[in-house]
């Protein structure tokens, strides 16, 4: 919270203006509004890019001056990393709740008490509406190359289009009008009105290349030609009158393992976060049930609102009328209390040479269980400290890159030996309420989530040794990689990410 000594001049100005209780913007006349009870929920929304420019603003009630964002900029300055900006910031007359997605801050201005998660969840939902979940390379760029996601995903599940492919500043700027229309529909008086993308798409059609071109030429619109005439669909998440020539349903079972491994390679904690993402393109109002071979694996589940909870409780069967298109059917969590096997092991070792400023960093990676399938697309990223000048690497397998600016070391190991994982298996999918036979496909995928391996570097060593020159070492056996760092290497943890994508099967129901 900005206390009096640290307020920037601009913020001070805003506070002063706020005290006069009128919008301080120069071109706005004083508000005739009597100061009734402060309005609830979301008052305004500002979109701010990484360099601190407000590139979009939207107000649902009276206009709040941009200068309120100065408090946000202050917090941004104080934070060392973009992620460190606190999500909730109080200002004298407003509260700012922000989320950071794709290097864009979505800053909501709140005037009074509201559950912060309410706003945060809504802002994330806005971003999710703008783009298909899981399709953003940015999302993954932090710790893993985008390589494995996009190459595998669209192959099995043809995605329905969403508003923009990726939610970037450019995409938003180019589609300002659509964004505005969407925001207008999503929020009424600061309270969410329609957030289901199925309904929104019925109201406002997503821009496509074709339509954009046609629109530009003919001047026609993105808004539905006619408003839906009748009732809003009785199933709030599904639009009415869906028709397909090919009826298809695809399910991706994606499991991510989060683990922390200590320096000796033993697992400190490991948990599984799984999701079933679906792409259902079925005519009419299909009523689906999905059953699992091993539902007991599901420890803690959260559902899309379409899933009938009682049925799950009683029979462990997912029964639902799906939304049209892509959606996340359920996500589940297998907690650290259960034993979660990790497909690979990681060991690393850092040594420094007496009296010289160089060190050696060995990283060993191998499959943990030999049963089963191969581990593919293994990628190790290691954030090296700023003091590292250069790294000379000698991988026994795969390729590596070291970015001397971000000090990020990535080692693309590729495929490792077979092993097997226990995982959720879909038993069968049945459909009721419609006559046709759909095409069904299910894909399993296990990915690394947040893998960390601990590395305890003795601080004493760091005190006495300054490393400078580089010296190549011979590679160690067993997929190991040696790298040499200089200048006080003291990464306390390195990040490890592996991924796996295989075992795709399709089933055509007869």
């Amino acid at each position, binding site marked *: 919270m900005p206390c009096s000594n640290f307020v920037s001049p601009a913020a001070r100005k805003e506070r002063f203006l706020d005290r006069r209780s009128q919008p301080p913007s120069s071109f706005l006349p004083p508000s*005739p*509004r*009597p100061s*009734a*009870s402060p*309005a*609830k929920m979301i008052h305004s929304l500002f979109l701010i890019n990484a360099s601190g420019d407000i590139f979009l603003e939207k107000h649902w*009630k009276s206009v709040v001056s941009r200068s309120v964002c100065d408090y946000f900029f202050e917090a941004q300055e104080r934070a060392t990393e973009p992620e460190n900006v606190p*999500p*909730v910031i109080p200002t004298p007359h407003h*509260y700012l709740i922000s989320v*950071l*997605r794709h290097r864009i801050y979505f800053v909501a201005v709140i005037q009074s*008490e*509201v559950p912060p*998660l309410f706003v*945060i969840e809504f802002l994330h939902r806005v971003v999710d509406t703008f783009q298909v979940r899981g399709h953003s390379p940015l999302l993954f760029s932090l*710790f893993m190359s985008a390589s494995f996601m996009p190459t595998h995903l669209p192959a099995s599940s043809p995605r329905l*289009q969403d508003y923009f*492919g*990726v939610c970037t500043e*450019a995409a938003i700027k*180019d589609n*300002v009008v659509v964004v*505005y229309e969407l925001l207008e529909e999503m929020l009424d*008086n600061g*309270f969410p009105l329609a*957030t289901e993308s199925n309904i929104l798409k*019925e*109201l406002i059609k997503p*821009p496509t*290349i074709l339509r954009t071109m046609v629109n530009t030429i003919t*001047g*026609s*619109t*993105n808004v*539905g030609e006619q408003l839906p*005439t009748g009732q*809003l669909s009785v199933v709030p998440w599904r639009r*009415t*009158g869906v028709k*397909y020539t090919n009826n298809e349903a695809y399910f991706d079972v994606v499991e991510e393992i989060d683990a922390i491994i200590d320096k000796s390679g033993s697992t*400190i904690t490991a948990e599984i976060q799984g999701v079933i993402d679906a792409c259902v393109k079925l005519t009419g109002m299909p*009523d689906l049930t999905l059953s699992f071979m091993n539902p007991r694996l599901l420890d*803690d*589940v959260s559902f899309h*609102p379409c899933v*009938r909870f*009682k049925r799950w409780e*009683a*029979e462990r069967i997912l029964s639902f009328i799906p939304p049209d298109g892509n959606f996340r059917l359920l996500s589940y969590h297998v*907690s650290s209390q259960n034993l979660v096997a990790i497909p690979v092991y990681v060991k690393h070792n850092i040594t420094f040479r007496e009296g010289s400023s160089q060190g050696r960093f060995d990283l060993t990676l191998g499959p943990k269980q030999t049963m089963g399938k191969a581990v593919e697309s293994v990628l190790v990223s290691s*954030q090296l400290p700023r003091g590292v000048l250069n790294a000379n690497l000698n991988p026994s397998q795969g390729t590596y890159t070291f970015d001397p600016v971000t000090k990020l070391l990535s080692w693309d190991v590729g495929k490792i030996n077979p092993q097997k994982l226990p995982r959720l298996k879909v038993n069968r999918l049945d459909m009721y*309420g419609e006559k046709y036979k759909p095409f069904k496909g299910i894909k399993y995928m296990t990915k690394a989530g947040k893998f960390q391996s601990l590395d*305890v*570097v003795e*601080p004493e060593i*760091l*005190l006495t040794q300054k490393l400078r020159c580089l010296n190549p070492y011979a590679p160690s056996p067993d997929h190991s990689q040696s790298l040499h760092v200089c200048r006080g290497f003291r990464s*306390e943890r390195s990040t490890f990410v592996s991924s796996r994508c295989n075992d795709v099967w399709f089933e055509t129901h007869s």
Partner: protein
Amino acid sequence: MSTTALYNDQQGGAEAAVEAGQETTATSSSSGAAFGLFSTDFKKNEDLKEMLESNKESLKLEAMKRIVQLISKGKNASDLFPAVVKNVASKNIELKKLVYVYLVRYAEEQQDLALLSISTFQRALKDPNQFIRASALRVLSSIRVPIIVPIMMLAIKEAASDLSPYVRKTSAHAIQKLYSLDADQKEQLIEVIEKLLKDKSTLVAGSVVMAFEEVCPDRIDLIHINYRKLCNLLVDVEEWGQVVIINMLTRYARTQFASPWKEDGILDENEKAFYDSDSEEKQGQREAKPYIMDPDHRLLLRNTKPLLQSRNTAVVMAVAQLYWHLAPKHEVSIVTKSLVRLLRSHREVQYVVLQNIATMSIQRKGMFEPHMKSFYVRSTDATHIKTLKLEILTNLANEANISTILREFQTYVKSQDKAFAAATIQAIGRCATNISEVTDTCLNGLVLLLSNRDETVVAESVVVIKKLLQTQPTQHCDIIKHMAKLFDNITVPMARASILWLMGEYCERVPKIAPDVLRKMAKTFTSEEDIVKLQTVNLAAKLYLTNSKQTKLLTQYILNLGKYDQNYDIRDRTRFIRQLIVPSEKSGALNKYARRILLASKPAPVLESAFKDRDRFQLGTLSHSLNIKTTGYQELSDWPAVAPDPSVRNVEVIEPVQEWAPSLGKAKKPKSDKFYSDDEEKEEEGSGSGSEDSSSRSSSSSSSEESGSESEEESSRDLEKTSSDSEKSSSGSEASSSESESQQKKKKRAKKVTPRKSKQAAADSDSDENGNGPVGKTSSSSAESSSDSESDSEEDSSSDDSPAPQKKTVAKTKPKVEVKSKKEVSLLDLDDFSAAPPSAPKSSVFSSSLLSDLEGLSLSNVSSAMQVTTSSFGPVKTYELLHHMTGKGLSAKYHFPRQPCLYQPSMVAVQVILTNSSDHSLEEIHIGDQSPASLNVHCFNTVERLEPGASVSVSLGIDFSDSTQAANFQLCTKEDQFSVSIQPAVGELLMPSTMKEPDFCSEQKKLMGMNETSATIAMATANTSKQNISKQVLSVANVGVVSSDQNNLQRFAGRTISSGALVLVTLELRESSTALLTINTEKTVMASMLLRDLKQALCQA
């Protein structure tokens, strides 16, 4: 319809193009960029005006798009108002929408011109399309022009009774807008809110509660009659509405219900003990129960629980805070898992959830301790996330896990994130003070850190060590010496100051070093930071008082330096100290006390969580997040001392059908008359409770209701159906007789279900919805046929939309819904009907047993298929608690009455008989200290006086947590204390569970492998008959018999009392009097103990 279909076809056709588009997002954005070029190419606003006034729609649209872009950039476009407002009546929908956007933004500034558009909206409010009506109302109410308040008021009132729920929702939003525009309309708006609160549409509920919260949050009386409806609708309300409703209901419940947290020992217990020996003790227990949860309170808890599974994190958090603030203490922990799940969500979500967990974990360590590892810090976490996780780990630390946590902390100290490393050191300090076992370890660890390279780490360590030493200064002069040695190397001012303070404070323990440090400081005094100078002056003063011989000159020198320091604080301090310690004429009396002032023993600083007092704010709120009271924050009131009259929530007339009917609002249901609705609610109530509750209770409740409405054949049948709904109506003793009956009923029900299914053309995947298999298929045909015709006619009567004849109340809700609209039914959970009664029951029909039904509800998460019954029979073994010789005349015996404990369901009831065999009367017999503290013992009330030869029976409740750990406590009289202990046999930690054979088998299948323990036993010859075996088994364990046709198999089922885990016992008789004894349960330890006991019992006899 046709257009959307068209759209879809189009989409199907363009599929390939779309897919291509996926890969080539670059193209799309480049084309967008081209579009951007167009728009950035604009000239001045003049050409916009021309474009708007042109005849071409495309030009107008283009102009509006550019205007919207201007608005989005925060540029002023108000001068175009006259040109824009003309287009408000445009036929082009997108153009119209954009004009709306513009109007809402600028109408306030251009009030006169804005009025031109009003008539258009008024016309649109009458449009046949609901979307046009809704959007007209939205825009009209968003125009903040005071002059149109009456028009808005009228529009809102009209929209509030619109046929479309979507429009009604919009009107609820408009209420808030109008209120913020003109607060004088409050009274009228409250009327509209009152009306909308009665609305049965799930679409409206959230919005109107929002309006309620904003306009008249204090009018809690408006909620009363809608309370039950809101609870029941909750699951189907859209996510955002759920959050608002849950928060409102939390507030409501805190004003309307009695606290479930009361210590229930307050009420008179002697009376209860009296009852216990009575034959009607079950009844007695219920009624004498000190705290009975209001059924409405329970309803709220039960109906919010499924929402923990919501994908919306705000909903999960709302439910979590509701449980935290409303649920009995032992139920709160069901939210743990869901909260931990949220930690995998976005960073911002994590932040808020962790804050709440931090507050919770201070009060309830146990809730999160099993999930401790989920709070381990990752180096990729943002700093504020790390700090919060650290906070939680520190809160969770106890003797058992401290070593693990400290090991984890060791890693954190080495973090590159220095703020985090410093926070870790603080956390270590907190652990050290809280857990005395590790204080020394931590202290040593911190001393090691003093030689760390990083200054912040060192400084923080010094500060923490200082605090730690202050709490226990006795034998730590070594550490002080060590710090004195390091002093030269430490540069951080705060750390230097801390060391100086320590030197001064404990100068008598380090008499040789302290003066030397002062000497060094005298040399560098001028170049030190202010804070160090101040402490140097302090050190000098203290040394002067204790060791003036060595330090007099040094002190004078330092005081002289300080006298001329640039900083006035230091000059002040120096002057003050000089007057205090150096005796002179002026200094007066104070001088005498200098030593007592400066060297007074100081209270140790308390190292405590920053979240310690956060619980003054309601969890999940903005105020809680920021730890300040935000605007508009409403305090959560304390529980009322006495709950207000619960009858206010009774609904006069119940129209259950409407809630489930599609909310088109076209066909108003005829109002059912009163007795009719009574039946209805009984059915609902019974099925609602029966699904989870013990069958003996539900059957007793149904029988009492039956007697009330004997004449009504219809309704009693209904009730029977209810009890078969709950699937088990038989209690263990009368299993055989009621078995066939219930099967018949089930058959009836199955009959009813079938047409329903076929109607919606949704054949279930299971052949039998209940999963019961073909058990009841062979039952009598007469009952079948009668029920057949019965249900058929019901179906008919309800299928044509005519008002249902009064008699056909049975199953009214169910078939009707389907018939109303086929789409509607597919939305609904068929299984929902039993558990979520659609209408609010009338409390006049609540019998006391029903109350207890509801109260017992979700205490255990027993699945609906099985219920726990009270024990039928069983031999009573009495154990000695206290012999009269050791007890100086007081003897005590105990037995396990095998009744559900009346204090808490997780407790084992123990009956203690106290006898006075001495020759004088004993007074004040009560329970003293207990150990271990973890076992929760509910004591009996003090027995004031026990005459010689008399005996009294009292009852205890002990929560053994499913272990056979003995409960040790002291039995005290006025004069003496006797240590006694109760060790339960493993069989007493169970309660019987009634289930059908198929259920048993299916449950057993789930508990194979690790969860199965078995042994072959040689049976004693006396035990071969079925009765004898049962007797033996029941004597050992408090389980229920599962009736079975198979002669060689005997099955028993029970549940553990604390955790409700199933315990299934199977005894398979083999030839030559051997038998295979199998126990299936998750509690493997219990299984092996039980196996041993059973084996023993069956072998001897």
